[in-house]
């Protein structure tokens, strides 16, 4: 009952004009960043992170929710129009959406992608609101040894889901090494500062994130030929559509089948709850499942609307799911929630059952913002901007990237007031640029930066609790559970990956 009251008061907060403004701004930023290849919603939140320092927390979180929801959705826009997924999560959308575009059904594809995303996002948010109390009561049962095993689980699963696991381990080790520089979390000693007084304060989270994501991307993008980029995007600008073309009819949706929507949403939500899997995985699993049960699997890869819908529904349903472990346990479900966790940390809010029980008033507006983004803003944006979506890629590239270059580097200064940290961000950017060139994944890096220090603290605290006896991780039921889960995933995930690979190879042959 209390829960519902607080959710309602959260709704009231979101419907204040200022909140709605921030939500809309966030949503709009997310659309732009999601749609542009190379820019992701994660980067958008990274850039907003230092700016949120002086903003009331509620607004900052509301804005993040807008960015999060729209950023994942809008990757589909460029995926459909120019066959380049604007965000990695839109990879499967590409396969079905672009063939539709070529058949002249671009508006229909965007319409279905939007409505699918809206339905998925809404169901994900509703599940988040109504199931999270359950998650909380479970979370309260988890003590420090259990938390250690959970983080271990997350770190191991992240490595397993990556294609090149050896490189994932290296990325992760690099992230942990950087994050342990500075003061020891549990003792008054400084580590790895090599006598440099600037390093005693450690490397700030903002420095690491901006260096690894924004700055390295700027080096990468500098080699793109401008004229070619313009030619490519001009193709998208030449097409004309009416507003009504964008909204799919009920009949079409019934043909896709309500079960597809519900099933894809559930898959998305569950994959979101699992730490480290993320939107791409949600879209992929849901797409494969839709293909398995489809009445016309031969259409897949050639403009099958149900494949498109399954992928888009699932990746947005993932949003609600990914927030559950982040808020109740402090384990982010994907890269973007990892950074939202950073936003919470800036405000001194420590995720955990304490947060969801005692500070529901903080979380309620955030939940509602997520729900409104999906249920209201998405269809609304389709109506307002649908025809312009096909032109979004036309923003002058020079203006865009030079603005990002300035905002990113100043973001580090705003967070730390230190030119030393700016220099560190630049160095990390250069290193991560080479890492990326050699296909070292960066998601393990960022999760290691965030989870690594916690992993260390929990391990040490657990062992002082047991007077140094490592059996504490097995005798505690919660810890044992996560350890067993880790083992199960280590066996099952590679098998599932192989099956998925075989499937996609199959399709290529066809």
């Amino acid at each position: 009952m209390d829960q519902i009251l607080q959710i309602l008061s959260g709704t009231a907060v979101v419907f204040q004009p200022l909140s709605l403004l921030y939500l809309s701004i966030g949503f709009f930023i997310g659309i732009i960043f999601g749609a542009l290849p190379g820019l992701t919603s994660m980067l958008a939140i990274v850039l907003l992170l230092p700016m949120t320092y002086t903003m009331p927390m509620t607004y900052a979180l509301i804005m993040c929710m807008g960015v999060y929801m729209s950023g994942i959705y809008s990757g589909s826009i460029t995926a459909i129009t120019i066959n380049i997924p604007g965000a990695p999560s839109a990879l499967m959308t590409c396969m079905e959406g672009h063939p539709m575009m070529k058949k002249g059904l671009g508006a229909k594809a965007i319409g279905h992608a939007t409505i699918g995303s809206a339905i998925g996002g809404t169901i994900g948010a509703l599940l988040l609101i109504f199931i999270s109390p359950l998650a909380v009561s479970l979370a309260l049962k988890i003590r420090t040894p259990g938390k250690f095993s959970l983080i271990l689980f997350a770190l191991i699963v992240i490595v397993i889901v990556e294609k090149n696991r050896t490189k994932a381990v290296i990325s992760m080790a690099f992230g942990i090494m950087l994050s342990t520089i500075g003061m020891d979390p549990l003792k008054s000693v400084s580590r790895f500062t090599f006598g440099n007084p600037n390093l005693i304060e450690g490397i700030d989270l903002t420095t690491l994130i901006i260096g690894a994501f924004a700055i390295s991307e700027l080096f990468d993008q500098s080699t793109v030929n401008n004229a070619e980029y313009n030619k490519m995007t001009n193709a998208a600008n030449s097409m004309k559509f009416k507003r009504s073309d964008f909204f799919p009819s009920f009949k079409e949706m019934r043909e896709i089948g309500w079960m597809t929507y519900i099933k894809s949403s559930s898959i998305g939500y569950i994959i979101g709850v699992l730490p480290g899997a993320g939107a791409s995985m949600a879209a992929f699993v849901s797409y494969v499942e839709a293909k398995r049960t489809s009445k016309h699997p031969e259409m897949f890869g050639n403009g099958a609307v149900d494949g498109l819908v399954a992928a888009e529904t699932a990746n947005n349903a993932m949003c609600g799911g990914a927030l559950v472990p982040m808020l109740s346990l402090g384990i982010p479900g994907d890269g973007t929630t990892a950074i939202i966790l950073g936003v919470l940390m800036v405000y001194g809010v420590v995720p955990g059952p304490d947060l969801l029980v005692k500070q529901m008033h903080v979380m309620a507006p955030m939940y509602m913002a997520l729900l409104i983004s999906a249920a209201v803003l998405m269809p609304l944006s389709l109506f307002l901007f649908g025809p312009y979506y096909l032109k979004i890629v036309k923003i002058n590239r020079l203006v865009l990237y030079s603005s990002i270059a300035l905002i990113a580097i100043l973001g580090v200064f705003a967070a730390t007031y230190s030119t030393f940290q700016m220099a560190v961000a630049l160095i990390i950017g250069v290193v991560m640029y080479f890492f990326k060139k050699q296909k070292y994944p960066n998601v393990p890096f960022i999760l290691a930066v965030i989870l690594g220090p916690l992993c260390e603290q929990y391990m040490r605290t657990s062992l002082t609790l047991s007077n140094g006896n490592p059996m504490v991780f097995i005798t505690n039921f919660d810890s044992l559970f996560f350890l067993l889960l880790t083992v199960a995933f280590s066996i099952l995930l590679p098998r599932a990956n192989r099956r998925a690979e075989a499937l996609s190879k199959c399709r290529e042959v066809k």
Partner: protein
Amino acid sequence: MNSRNHYLQAKVIIPFFMQIALIIYVVSALQLSSPLVDGMLSESSFPVIIFLVATPAALKLLFDGLKDVKKEIAEGKEVVVKKKSIKPVLTVVIMAVFIALFELLGFSILAPLYIFFFMMVYDDKPQFIVKKIIFALLIAVVVYVMYAIAFDIRFPEIWR
């Protein structure tokens, strides 16, 4: 036949430096204390664990890289020197100069110049100079308003 170039490829260099970094990391951790003090974990235990986990990975990548290189040499393949763009280097230089001078010259002088040169590097050839100057000033003003006015963050300025 210059075999040195073969060994200077990223697939060899990255794991090599990573391994060096790991060794420095673990040595400097062990200088602080032993990983186990009276049967309890200390500030160096976690770094030692990271070292133990990452070292096999780094070595595997290093040996894989070396094996590739040996094969290339045996097959007499020349390292394909791709014509590398100088632009990423220029981008790094612009950023480094900006950071180095930031406290000295401040936002108002540096930001427009930074954006201007950034756009120059990003463009295919130096063109539309006046347009770029206008954009540089505009972007600097917008970013300044966003940070300094909306979020009350004070940047260094030459007159402060």
